[in-house]
């Protein structure tokens, strides 16, 4: 399977991955290199806006099809079910308390939009075709996993302890989750992209399209810095069994994505992207929601897993694996 090795090494030498590695190394060496919080937020606004606009524009060009609707449905169902898989796996292999299992499960059912972006660039670079509506699938996969996770937590705490009431999904929480800034921006930019047409798109293209990969590099440098800092401090808090979960869970998720993509009849790139969505874990919308809903869950475990292990895993060797697997179909 030479092609996989080629694919993997091309990916590893891409500027995106290298800047991520630079960030991790700098953080592990305790360099003073850092990206100000305001700038990191600006970069994520840019990236989310760009991906939303481009996705909406592509869907508008292609029109709403049955396959789009099926893919959205599949995304919602996967996002609901993957946390159950993650929760079960954690119960089988680790000694984490139920509330931590539920919180981690919610992270893994949801998605990492930056992993998705990186995969889109690799897939486009390789010339594989992918459905334009995959951005919409990404958007619908953000939230259901949070609800699954909360249900898991409520269920377990109902059995075991008295503070069950604290876990209930209240209205306020639901609103906060659905109206998380990154979700509103992604959906909003998608809708805008769907209506502005070619003229509107070409007006914003010099900002939104051309410098996109360069901005992604700076953002990945920042992700690397944050991930490295998390690894440095969170390392001691996770057991080998938990660590292992951060490496095999993406593969389980990707497997589910592979099957679903096959069933949906997606193009090679589309299957790979659905695998990436299933394999990736959220570290923007879900952590904030979990701090609100499950204050007893230890945030540093889930963040170390999602950002310190699974994100680098997907970015470096996960994406090539998923593309290779998708191209088998």
């Amino acid at each position: 399977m030479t092609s996989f090795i080629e694919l993997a090494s091309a990916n590893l030498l891409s500027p995106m991955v290298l800047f991520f590695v630079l960030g991790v190394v700098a953080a592990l060496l305790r360099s003073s290199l850092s990206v100000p919080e305001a700038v990191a937020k600006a970069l994520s606004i840019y990236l989310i806006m760009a991906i939303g606009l481009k996705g909406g524009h592509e869907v508008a060009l292609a029109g709403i099809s049955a396959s789009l609707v099926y893919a959205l449905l599949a995304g919602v169902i996967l996002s609901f079910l993957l946390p159950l898989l993650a929760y079960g796996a954690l119960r089988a292999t680790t000694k984490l308390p139920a509330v931590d299992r539920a919180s981690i499960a919610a992270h893994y059912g949801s998605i990492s939009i930056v992993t998705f972006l990186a995969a889109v660039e690799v897939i486009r670079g390789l010339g594989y075709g992918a459905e334009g509506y995959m951005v919409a699938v990404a958007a619908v996969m953000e939230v259901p996993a949070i609800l699954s996770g909360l249900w898991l937590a409520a269920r377990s705490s109902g059995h075991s302890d008295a503070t069950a009431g604290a876990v209930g999904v209240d209205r306020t929480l639901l609103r906060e989750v659905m109206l998380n800034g990154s979700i509103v921006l992604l959906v909003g930019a998608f809708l805008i992209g769907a209506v502005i047409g070619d003229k509107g798109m070409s007006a914003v293209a010099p900002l939104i399209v051309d410098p996109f990969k360069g901005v992604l590099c700076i953002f990945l440098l920042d992700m690397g810095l944050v991930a490295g800092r998390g690894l440095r401090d969170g390392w001691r808090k996770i057991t080998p069994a938990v660590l292992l979960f951060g490496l095999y869970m993406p593969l389980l998720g990707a497997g589910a994505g592979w099957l679903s993509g096959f069933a949906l009849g997606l193009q090679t790139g589309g299957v790979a992207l659905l695998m990436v969505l299933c394999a990736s874990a959220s570290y923007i919308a879900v952590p904030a929601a979990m701090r609100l809903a499950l204050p007893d869950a230890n945030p540093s475990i889930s963040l170390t897993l999602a950002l310190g292990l699974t994100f680098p895993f997907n970015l470096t060797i996960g994406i090539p694996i998923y593309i290779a697997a998708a191209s088998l179909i």
Partner: protein
Amino acid sequence: MKTYAKKRMEIIIEAPFLNRLLDHLDQQGVHGYTVVPAIAGKGHGGNWSRDGLVSDAGRLVMVICILDPSDASTLLESTYAQMSNRIGIVSLGDVEVVRNDHF
């Protein structure tokens, strides 16, 4: 100049919880508060730094609230009840102010 004794409550709390805390203060009839950013910290839960964070999770803010000594005890209790499981701390100090009725 005539001054009046007030209490200064300082709450350091994780950012995702901020809105709920402020809603709570509003409900308790607090007249005012000011939120100050924090950039790094350490506690029993380990240390954190704001640099490069995109999500609100993992970031702390500080809420300063000057209030009447007669309200302080009730507010401390109810705030503490709200927060108990959260990452954060509350402290209470003495200050003097000029405009008695403002707080």
